[in-house]
């Protein structure tokens, strides 16, 4: 088996293992180790790593998990990720988790933080509320204190002290990791036939489950193997996917889009692994550095406020241009407030730039791929035949 195939095989096993054996083994290997779960979209994983703990991404139960108990916790009209996350918890699949961070993604994830406080009162639970004000002496000061509170919370949980040097070391490791992930995106945009979207997805997903050092090495090995070899090139069009930053699509959905004739050359899967668009300085006050970089060098997405109307939606136009894409596929989870409320504004931005798009919805357990294949296939044909 080729090295790249071996790596993807490992990633696939990690992805499919809903008992999270790897993280359990990591924890069991050294007494006192802690695992901190986090949900999409963004948390400062550097702080968790600096505490000697494993940041562990919980991105729902996917299409392999039958949600039985989780449904009893939610009303009819809501996305699926909270249901399957509750199911993971109630079926003891998350019993090795020592803490949970819930980012300020939307009201559903926010309220899930309170649900965990009630369901798992014994663990460290924190709502990670990042600023929507981007002034250094306003949102910046607030965020510095938030990070400091996170630091103190983890110190208490672990009975440890997080030094500035611990944090600087973690910042450096995540700087490297982000650079590698960005390199993977660049490579895929340049030669999409060499890196199928499903492989890129699995590699990224592995980064949610592995220690950062191991994941970075995995990326290095994969890219070296891919660069050395070649794969058949198809006559596909090039698209950007938008809207998949929280509840994840089934792997088959990603595969179906490519099989329908669309190379996915950019996307918003697992934005936490490239949220900061510039390296965080490793000198000076590390918390202030994290805060400043967050304020001024974060990706733009539906879950954040855009203070400048002229900039609204331009991040997607930029993503299309940067990756030389020919169109956008809006694929949002059903009942996803951030993605679906943002979409009309993004569509206007694309209209202004004369970029074609299509839109559909999915759930993490969507099983019927035929309609999606037909829609994506028609979109690909229309781009290729008529440039529409």
């Amino acid at each position, binding site marked *: 088996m080729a090295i790249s195939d071996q790596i993807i095989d490992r990633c696939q096993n990690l992805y499919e293992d809903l008992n999270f054996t790897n993280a359990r083994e990591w924890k069991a290997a050294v007494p006192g180790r802690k695992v901190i779960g986090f949900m999409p979209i963004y948390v400062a994983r550097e702080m968790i790593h600096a505490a000697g703990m494993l940041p562990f991404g919980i991105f729902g139960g996917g299409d392999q998990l039958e949600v039985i108990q989780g449904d009893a916790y939610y*009303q009819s009209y809501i996305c699926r990720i909270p249901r399957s996350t509750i199911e993971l918890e109630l079926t003891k699949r998350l019993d090795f988790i020592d803490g949970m961070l*819930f980012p300020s993604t939307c009201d559903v994830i926010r309220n899930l933080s309170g649900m965990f406080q*009630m369901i798992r009162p014994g663990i460290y639970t924190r709502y990670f509320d990042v600023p929507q004000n981007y002034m250094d002496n306003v949102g910046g000061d607030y965020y510095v204190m938030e990070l400091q509170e996170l630091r103190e919370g983890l110190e208490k949980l672990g009975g440890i002290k997080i030094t500035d040097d611990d944090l600087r070391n973690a910042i450096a490791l995540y700087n490297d990791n982000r650079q590698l992930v960005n390199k993977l995106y660049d490579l895929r945009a340049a030669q999409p036939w060499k890196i199928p979207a499903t492989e890129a997805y699995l590699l990224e997903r592995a980064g949610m489950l592995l220690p950062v050092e191991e994941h970075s090495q995995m990326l290095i090995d994969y890219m070296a193997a891919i660069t050395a070899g070649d794969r058949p090139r198809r006559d596909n069009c090039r698209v950007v996917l938008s809207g998949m930053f929280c509840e994840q699509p089934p792997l088959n959905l990603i595969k179906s889009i490519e099989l329908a004739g669309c190379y996915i050359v950019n996307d918003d899967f697992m934005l936490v692994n490239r949220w900061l668009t510039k390296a965080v300085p490793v000198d000076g006050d590390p918390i202030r550095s994290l805060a400043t970089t967050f304020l001024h060098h974060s990706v733009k997405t539906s879950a954040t406020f855009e203070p400048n109307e002229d900039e609204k939606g331009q991040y997607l136009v930029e993503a299309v241009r940067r990756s030389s894409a020919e169109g956008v596929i809006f694929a949002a989870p059903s009942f996803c407030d951030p993605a679906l409320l943002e979409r009309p504004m993004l569509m206007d931005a694309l209209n202004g730039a004369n970029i074609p798009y299509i839109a559909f919805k999915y759930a993490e357990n969507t099983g019927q791929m035929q309609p999606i294949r037909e829609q994506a296939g028609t979109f690909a044909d229309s781009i290729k035949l008529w440039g529409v």
Partner: protein
Amino acid sequence: MNAITTSKPLEPRDAKKDQSQIKQKEMIAGNFQELTDAHKQGKKVSYTFVPGNLNELVMCFDMVGNYPEINALQNGMRKKTGAYIMEAERQGHSEDVCTYVKSDLGMVKKGNIGPTGQPLPEPDLLLLSYTGCFTFMKWFELLRHEYKCETAMLHVPYQADGKITDNMRNYVVNQLKQDVIPKLEKISGVKFDIDRLREYLRESAKAEENLVWVLQSAKHKPSPIDAYFGAIYYVGPIFSAFRGTRDATEYYRLLRKEIQERIDQGLGPVTPDGVMKEEKYRLVTEGPPNYTHMYEFWKMFYEDGAVNVASTYTKVGGTYDFGFRHDPEHPLESLANYCLSCYTNLSLPERVKMLVTYINEYQADGLLINSIKSCNSFSAGQLLMMREVEKQTGKPAAFVETDLVDPRYFSAANVKNRLESYFQMIDQKRHAA
């Protein structure tokens, strides 16, 4: 509320009105007229939200406040929202998202004629009080996209751990000082006067005192008010463009006097069909109401002798009954504390605590949750809250699903069926006891 003079079922428009109701009607009509005339009279217009609204601050700049949520619910009661929502969906908005937003955007697309039939002015400022609801942020981005006007964002951190920290309060105050107030000054051309703000806050506190008295009057048996359907009218002035005005103070003084009279006479709440005769069930209610079928929904309660003695929806614009009052001695900090403590900005465990307190203090028979399709801020997690409240109080709970202003999501037969079963359950529980 209405003082009913006949036993014949009445529509609210047929009823004889109390002084407070006449007062409120005049205030609302005046506000819509002021909005219509604002630009002609050289006044600037601020759009903002109910939770975390900064009405006293806005008044310091002689600006007129418009509340898109209020317009949506008013349009819902006038059966206008169905068409507005469909219009927004035709424009590309998803069927899955908040119907308040779509109702508002649909109204804008159809000429921005307000619920009273008067044209609404375009905003000069979108004051985005981002309190307890993610959708607010996107709603005002969408309105800004439409109007291309200035937006002031006030990010209010979520009280996830059930307390307001200094960091949260300082963050809100800093935003007020460094972003919100300068923008209000720039748009209005009026210099900020903190003493003027203090004066309005002093007025707010007076009204808040009487509002709390009115809401807590439901502890009496029989309750003189319905603290859900009826109280939606009572909180109207203080949740919108009137907090901090003398009109609001006067309204709550009149209302308190009228409720005192009801207590003295041992009367139950007034409903659209007259005074509720026999109080059989006392309920605590969680979640917003349905506005498109408000009277049909309410009737399902009072016909069976069920009165809502406390509700959480009437706390979205402030949790005054837990002690908060606007404080003129600490004006900006007080506004920050107000924003931080609005109901949907509280954690789920804190919301459970509030519901348990209500059930105990108001001697309620149980909890009813109206889960709203549109509102994840309220609805996500309510079923777990329900279990917790049942566990802690031993009182039965029920769960119904409707929507705020989308008539497609109100199924009268289903709701009635569930309510009737629930009332039977309460009866059985009583007999068992």
